[in-house]
């Protein structure tokens, strides 16, 4: 009997082994994700990348660039064009001990795979009393702001966060892109790894050898004493900009980057909110039933008597994603954030 066992890997909550020595460099999130994939594939032969156009082309966003050249088409597989088939095949591969990393080409194109995701990926460990864990990472470029035509800018994180059994992770910095993707691939649980499309190309300094905070920890990106902006992924830069602009209005805003939506870092979030007493949740996806609702609800449950004002939400409108020429009206910008901050009942 030759059933393959998954290779031992660090459990969730710890980061993966750091990559071969490297120094601080300047790079984009796209490059960091590419490095993370390459380093994960070098470190662990069970890591397989698969998806549409991930091979020779290197993916439409070039996140998988060069992987087929280095690891061959078996390790970085151009699949037929069928998302349920891709994820379903990845499930079978994971059952045999591989660690598939699946790329969905755009968020809206992950929808055909939702049945496989909800009914199997999220549930398999539970269905089998732990006997059949599925260490699958599903990478999904998400969100708008890149001038994409319809179906290319959905932000679908609410579907994933509402599904027990999935981890949902989203980086907002170049360093996190690398570190969180390594940790996601190393996780023995399935991770939906949401990549903010519009942050792919901006460059930052980062040190690939420096460990990042593990999955499940929120990180305060800016301290402040007036109120906190709670955000993640594509909205982090907007929040930082808003916090900067808020100084002119006399507000000293903290900015908290959640990084992982599931598991949720209740402790850090509650600590920060309690210390400032006012909070605005910011994300670009639609508001109704969005992740912001969960954040606002749980923050309020935990910090009610520390709150000087209700937790407000600044989100995209409850509409299908607009055509690109109108998207800037939909996406939360600095002004909309500051308007919300202004409504935090300062007079009181």
């Amino acid at each position: 009997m030759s059933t393959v066992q998954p290779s031992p890997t660090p459990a969730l909550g710890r980061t993966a082994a750091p990559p071969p020595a490297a120094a601080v460099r300047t790079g984009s999130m796209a490059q960091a994700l590419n490095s993370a994939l390459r380093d994960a594939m070098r470190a662990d032969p069970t890591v397989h990348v698969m998806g549409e156009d991930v091979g020779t082309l290197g993916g439409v966003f070039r996140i998988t660039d060069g992987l087929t050249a280095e690891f061959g088409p078996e390790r970085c597989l151009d699949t037929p064009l069928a998302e349920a088939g891709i994820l379903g095949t990845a499930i079978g591969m994971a059952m045999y001990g591989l660690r598939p990393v699946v790329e969905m080409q755009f968020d809206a194109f992950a929808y055909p795979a939702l049945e496989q995701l909800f009914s199997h990926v999220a549930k398999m460990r539970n269905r089998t009393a732990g006997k059949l864990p599925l260490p699958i990472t599903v990478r999904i470029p998400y969100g708008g702001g890149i001038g994409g035509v319809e179906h290319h800018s959905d932000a679908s994180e609410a579907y994933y966060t509402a599904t027990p059994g999935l981890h949902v992770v989203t980086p907002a910095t170049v360093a996190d892109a690398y570190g969180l993707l390594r940790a996601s691939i190393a996780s023995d649980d399935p991770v939906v790894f949401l990549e903010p499309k519009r942050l792919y190309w901006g460059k930052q300094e980062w040190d690939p050898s420096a460990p990042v905070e593990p999955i499940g920890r929120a990180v305060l990106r800016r301290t402040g004493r007036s109120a906190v902006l709670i955000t993640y992924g594509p909205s982090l830069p907007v929040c930082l900009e808003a916090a900067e602009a808020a100084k002119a209005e006399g507000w000293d805003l903290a900015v908290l980057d959640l990084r992982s939506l599931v598991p949720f870092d209740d402790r850090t979030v509650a600590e920060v909110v309690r210390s400032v007493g006012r909070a605005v949740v910011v994300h670009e996806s639609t508001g109704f039933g969005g992740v912001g609702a969960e954040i606002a609800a749980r923050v309020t449950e935990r910090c009610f008597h520390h709150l000087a004002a209700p937790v407000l939400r600044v989100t995209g409108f409850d509409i299908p994603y607009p055509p690109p020429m109108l998207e800037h009206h939909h996406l939360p910008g600095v002004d909309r954030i500051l308007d919300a901050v202004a409504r935090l009942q300062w007079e009181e």
Partner: protein
Amino acid sequence: MTVLDPSPDFLRGDPHPAAASVPGWLPGATGPRSDPAPLLPDPSPVRVLGTPLLEKTDPALLRELYRRLVVGRRYNQQATTLTKQGRLAVYPASTGQEACQVAAALALHEQDWLFPSYRDTLAVVARGVDPLEALTLLRGSAHTGYDPRATRTAPLCTPLATQAPHAVGLAHAARLRGEPVVALAMLGDGGTSEGDFHEALNFAAVLHAPVVFLVQNNGYAISVPLTQQSAAPTLAHKAVGYGIPGRLVDGNDAPAVHAVLTEAMERARSGGGPTLVEALTYRIEAHTNADDATRYRQEEEVAAWREHDPILRMELHLRAAGLLEDRLVQEAADEAEALAARMRAEFHADAELDPMSLFAHVYAEPTPQLREQSAQLAAELAAEAEVHAR
């Protein structure tokens, strides 16, 4: 060609036909439920150009196809140029595939419906939709710029193969009403891998719906070549698995595509059920202007297909047949230039858009939530305007 009639009895009365009427599913079954032979495609693609069939083709049709091919090519070129000038957000050109686009449009009757993919703007235009309205999606100013009902043309469809079941449903509804409407769904080779393609073909066959599926097999789904998309003898062979006829045609031979589609549409219209047509063609340009095709294919391959260009071939064969008068050539060129000039003029100006339209069509009546949000945006816009006014 005899077409089997796999129409389920249930559309004729008895809700659940006795299973005993299914020869292939009986305890002692000895044969299939229907004869597969007529469903299998002739593996040699149908051709008209350069064959005796050319002589039998209506010269007026040939001239019309020629004219539209020329205009279509220019349309593709102009749209691509507009992307370079930042006037279109993106353009998936059908350059090299114009024969499929134009022949498909011409095979439709006025009451028929077209279900195009994102690559089929030219078919939409050839069908009669205003060229500028057809481009709003790709310009980025509006999702769908034309009225689908008035034009019997569904919105350009991006999620692959999802338009195929829509075509089936519409055709089914029309048949139930006794109206002679046929739906034509267009998709690519890559799209055949999606589950929706399969479900649509199966529904079409079981419902015996008047729908035709045209797969433009242009050899690639973005970078992924056919060999990695399918191992089937041809994509048209998929038809037999649904009990419908499959047909293979040279997709760069406009009169051949027109003939094969017309035959399939007439069969559908007269109650003969759906057909799957595979047209062999080639995407001469990259996937879109944003794609770099040199990463995944060789120039020699492109060159081989350039020689098989649908317009060159039309020209060659029509001229040889004495059907291509100089006047026609000139008229076509003029029409093409006029269209290109109109596109340049229109897209030169910035689109004037109303941000408040974002809330207008989410529901028949905005929800209370949308009313609040629309008031919020209005206030934001007013505040902005005030800042600008200062």
